[in-house]
């Protein structure tokens, strides 16, 4: 399909990215659920062991540590940051079999499940815990099988998986653009999480297009990224007007 048929430009004009407004986020978890369904992320009857669940979009609870009445809490949705560090992302740098690679035309860090040997080196190298391992065979209740997304292949036991910025939606958008005689390299599309968020907290688009909402929001004075000091160069930005939240975004800020 269209995924690999990119044009040749080395310095691409597309860098897909995301901005999540924590001031708007209510922590409802719709993004996480939509992601799970859209990307055929399997689950088990008992998901109480949070260190073993498959989760592409995880909600973290942040607390300011103060007592009543100054107590504050916030939720922080965390997809894969699609790290844009020069040369390599932390995870793509270490994968011995090129099963996780950054598409330099879009900036999307992808994962080829059928090539992954399950060594979990990428998981260990990712500081955001954006990757989960398939500890069990994926299984869905019979009644849910008809609801699986046909464009996304389910992953098998023994491999790692993570957020792809709904790469299949990009492929569909590119195909549509081709049919309409438009430039497939400049399409805009919306991942499932951004589509369902009831408060409109998630904005997605091309960070390199100065006119895009996402590029404008990324320059907002409220904008920050997680763990900037590590120089992983996340393409996911957060917005918050609360100083204590911004402080928790990085060590020793």
């Amino acid at each position, binding site marked *: 399909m269209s995924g690999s048929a990119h044009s040749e430009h080395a310095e691409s004009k597309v860098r897909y990215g995301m901005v999540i407004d924590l001031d708007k986020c209510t922590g409802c978890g719709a993004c996480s659920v939509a992601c799970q369904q859209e990307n055929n992320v399997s689950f088990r009857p008992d998901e109480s*062991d949070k*260190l*073993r*669940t498959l989760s592409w979009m995880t909600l*973290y*609870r*942040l*607390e300011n540590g103060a007592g009543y009445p100054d107590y504050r809490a916030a939720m*922080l949705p965390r997809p894969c940051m699609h*790290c844009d*560090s020069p040369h*390599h992302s*932390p995870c793509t*740098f*270490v*994968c*011995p*079999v*090129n*099963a996780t690679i950054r598409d330099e035309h879009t900036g999307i860090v992808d994962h080829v499940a059928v*090539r*992954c*040997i*399950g*060594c*979990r*080196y990428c*998981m*260990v*190298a*990712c*500081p*955001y*815990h954006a*990757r*989960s*391992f*398939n*500890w*069990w*065979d994926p299984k869905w209740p019979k009644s849910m099988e008809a609801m699986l997304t046909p464009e996304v292949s389910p992953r*098998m*036991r*023994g*491999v*790692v998986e993570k957020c792809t910025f709904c790469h299949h939606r990009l492929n569909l958008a590119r195909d549509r653009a081709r049919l309409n005689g438009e430039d497939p390299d400049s399409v805009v599309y919306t991942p499932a999480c951004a589509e369902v968020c009831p408060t409109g907290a998630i904005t997605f688009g091309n960070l390199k297009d100065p006119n895009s909402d996402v590029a404008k929001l990324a320059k907002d004075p409220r904008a920050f990224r*997680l*763990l900037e*000091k*590590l*120089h*992983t160069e996340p393409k996911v930005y957060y917005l918050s007007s609360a100083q204590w939240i911004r402080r*928790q*975004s*990085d*060590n*020793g*800020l």
Partner: protein
Amino acid sequence: MDKALIPEGVKRCPLPVFGLWLLFLLAVIAWGIYAGLTVLIKGLNVTGLNNYFGFGLYITVDLGIIALGAGAFFSGFMYYGLSRFFPKLKELHKIINLAVIVGFCCYTGALLVLLLEIGQPLRGWFGYWHANVHSMLTEVIFCISCYAIVLVIEFVPIILENRKLDAVKPLHVFGHNLHEIMAIFAMTGTFLSFFHQGSLGGVPGVMFGRPFAYRTGFFIWPWTFFLFTLSAMACGPAFTALICRIIEKVSNKKLVDRSVYELIAKITGSLLLIYLILKTMDTLYWALDTAPGFGLKLSDFYREPYGMWLLFAELGLCGVLPVILLLTPQTRNSNGLLFLGFFLNCAGIVINRFAMTVEALAIPVMPFDQWAVYIPTWAEWAPCIAMLAYGALIVSLSYRYLPIFPREKELNP
């Protein structure tokens, strides 16, 4: 009963006793195989690993055992390479066979455990087919498998020295010729080992998203690359000496001259000292420059059960102390203290491998994240213990049926 197979002029325990020992080892190995099959059939969910601890006991044991197995390459390097310039190193001839056998056990054992460690063992060969040249793990996969082949080649002539096999003319000639060219393999092994011991160090060192493990370095190699190679050289021969001592104790015989142990003590003690100085410099630079650059203090990295005590155990109890024990003539003269020195040396390096792979993962990188603790399950212990039993099996068989100690006859008239 098996007299015809036992090397001439040496004594071995009665076959039934040896048989019982083998039976015990085989039982442990069977337990490990059962655990291994459970992991392969049911998946890694039977282990204590999780999304935070992607690396666990398997990796620690692999890294530890490969460092301890470094006696093979480093003794070979000293004997075949350096002894031209330092004739004293010729002494190592008396223990070199054992070093090769121990190395063989360590590497083949590690490869078997590695097979369990990856979630898709059937895709193990993708490491060669889809190799990512930037990944340290790729370097590890290539060098370790090449070196395991070199070790097999080095082991073959030792096997061919068995009395019965040696009586077969073509085998005798083949074995003899192999002996002649062994220096080439020893040097190839040295070259490969320098690289894979180093790239094993590179595995944690290049993770720039993990402030505990990440190290700056030289060109494409983080400092851990060099530290791992050096520490493997410092503990490998010590491990060989320990194994030799255990065989001596069990068989109630003297197998090598004490001078060999003393030589190994001086070499490993000196290397450990150099390693400790560099490691301390590395730790200080990391604690005072690298980590603060990431916004972290030294104390942020240590919390029970992975407290500062691990650092003190690694560098103090199992670092400075063995250096003193191995380099001071008085302590070196006491058997108890000498072998305690060897033991602590090896233990320190294993703690280092644990710290760089498992402890490194306990520390939350995102400030709002939590600390995690990892507890291995029986499915992880069993294959690791079985691997040790497998090593004991190979060493036992080799000792019984092969003339691996050239001085055994003279030392036990």
